[in-house]
């Protein structure tokens, strides 16, 4: 047996980033967070310092006060939360049922229906806005939070993800429940849904961040303070017609995205883990 000479280079451990990686990661992170840093700067300083950086700039909360008073943000906030959670809840409910049917039933036309469902993955509601507005107004749902959410209630993305996850649920678990006398819906409730929790979480992240940011459709459909979500309220500051007032825009932006940001900070571990266990990987 030949003793191998020490030819291999001392490889740096594959789990450590190394100084080059650390440097790269930090440079990128700084670049990525610059807009937020700038927002913090502009929002906490008077308008004349919005575009000039100086250590002597005084701190102020006036921009927040002004932004807060420019629109009924607490109400918008409430609307957005109702909208986002409402859409999510209904999506999860409807899509669970549909995904279950696709995952564990054999029925005529299942492939056709599945393809038809997938169509929605690529058809964006933005294009179909006029038609959908007509539908909504004929239902008398214009200017309601319910109406804003309606076109999004069925999500092909959710159905697709859940179907994938449901398909990975071990057959034995289902049979075990069956042996115990559980009905089809009981099996869904007690076996499939709890096991798909990571997928639900991952989809929730996608859905919430999408609808928290959605703009054009809510703008067209909402008329009153009672139905207007945050993004549309934010638009008061973003309209470039009168020139941009960065101080107020950034203050409003910070105010409105803080909940999602803080949420992510707190739950980042869980999110990553749930993505990990979800079908999307």
């Amino acid at each position, binding site marked *: 047996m030949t003793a191998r000479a020490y030819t291999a280079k001392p490889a740096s451990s594959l789990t450590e980033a190394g100084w080059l990686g650390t440097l790269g990661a930090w440079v990128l992170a700084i670049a990525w967070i610059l807009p937020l840093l700038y927002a913090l700067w502009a929002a906490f300083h008077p308008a004349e310092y919005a575009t000039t950086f100086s250590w002597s700039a005084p701190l102020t909360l006036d921009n927040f006060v002004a932004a807060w008073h*420019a629109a009924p943000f607490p109400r918008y906030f409430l609307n957005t939360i109702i909208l986002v959670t409402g859409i999510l809840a209904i999506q999860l409910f409807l899509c669970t049922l549909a995904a279950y049917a696709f995952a564990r039933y054999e029925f005529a036309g299942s492939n056709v229906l599945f393809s038809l469902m997938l169509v929605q993955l690529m058809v964006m509601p933005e294009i179909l806005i006029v038609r959908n507005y007509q539908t909504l107004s004929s239902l008398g749902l214009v200017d309601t939070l319910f109406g804003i959410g309606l076109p999004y209630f069925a999500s092909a993305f959710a159905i697709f993800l859940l179907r994938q996850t449901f398909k990975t649920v071990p057959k034995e678990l289902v049979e075990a429940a069956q042996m115990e006398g559980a009905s089809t819906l009981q099996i869904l409730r007690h076996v499939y849904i709890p096991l798909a929790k990571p997928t639900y979480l991952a989809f929730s992240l996608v859905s919430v961040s999408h609808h928290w940011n959605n703009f054009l459709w809510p703008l067209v459909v909402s008329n*009153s303070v009672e139905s207007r979500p945050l993004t549309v309220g934010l638009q*008061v500051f973003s309209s470039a*017609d009168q*020139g*941009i007032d960065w101080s107020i825009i950034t203050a409003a932006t910070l105010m409105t995205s803080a909940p999602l940001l803080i949420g992510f900070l707190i739950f980042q571990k869980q999110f990553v883990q749930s993505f990990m266990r979800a079908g999307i990987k």
Partner: protein
Amino acid sequence: QTEVSFYFPVAVGGPVTKIIDGYAAEFNKENPDLKVVPVYAGSYQETVVKALTAHKANKPPAAAILLSTDTFTLIDEDAIVPFDNFVKTDEERKWMKDFFPAFLLNGQIDNKTWGIPFQRSTVVMYWNKQAFKEAGLDPNTAPQNWEQLVSMGQKLTKRDASGNVERWGIQVPSSGFPYWLFQGFSTQNGAILANSEGTQVAFDDLKVIEALQFWVDLSQKYKIHPPGVVQWGTTPADFMQGKSAIIWTTTGNLTNIRKNAPFEFGVAMLPENVRRGSPTGGGNFFIFKKAPEAEQQGAFRFAKWLTQPERAAQWSIDTGYVAVSPAAYETQALKSYAADFPPAVVARDQLPFAVAELSTHDNQRVTKALNDGLQAALTGAKTPQQAMKDAQAEANRILRAYR
């Protein structure tokens, strides 16, 4: 009680939604049979999208503030009714006559008045007095004509040792509404861009090409204007930063600049060439055709109420827009405001020289043709001549259907 829904945009800084909500509340108190419901609808563009989408779904608002240039589009979509339908009494006839005539230009077609002026503007010139002083110019005199604009601009343009520009002499924005600011140049050069029927444009008129050449020359020949396309949105900030000594923009920005500029500034009419000139701008009040009769009537009453001199005066003070009738300028409030702050009446003073804002059938498409041409010339992609010839051809193609 009749509910009158009313869409309005926010185009300028300040708590516009609060003010409008306040108006509605006040009006509703005075008119218990009506309930005006103001709906803030975003920018001008978003408001017209919202209004027309609702119209197409047969659920339009009773009234809306939309760009005066949308009139042809609104007529072509069969979305609005003329005010003449509602004007019955002598008092109402007088009300219609009391507006500044320049503000009625875009709203009157085929001898009918389709839109009543509400938040109206002209392009004005802001100048940085401190920069003027630095450049050895009289801080209290703005350039009066194109030559002065160039010569003062050259003095005002400041370069550092390596030739980088620290301050531009003049800046005219060319994004957002390039055609609107260009109408300053073209009007001053004696050109009118469109006929009043909205069926013919004169983009390839020699005077128009010359005007464009002048704008291009400001940056390419005289080097006193930033190259390329200048952002509408950052122009006021550029001015307040001292990066441009002179800017052209809407008078609607007055309040904003007044609040935030860290130096003394002046406001003047645009300079003249063969004549003085500026387009009017801003939004008119429209009444929607598919709204029920009672709502239309309510909207009409609200329009009258909104444009009363006292209210128009207050609106002007709050936003910087031009009050819509001479009578407003006779009110105590506006008089003392103007005495205190003379720039507030510059836009009004410019009205005698003002022309209609470019507006035709299929307006946005024709406007886009011109905008693309302007930007092509300003970025050096085409000569002004070529750019305007192409724009004219495109406009002719679009407008053929309406002749």
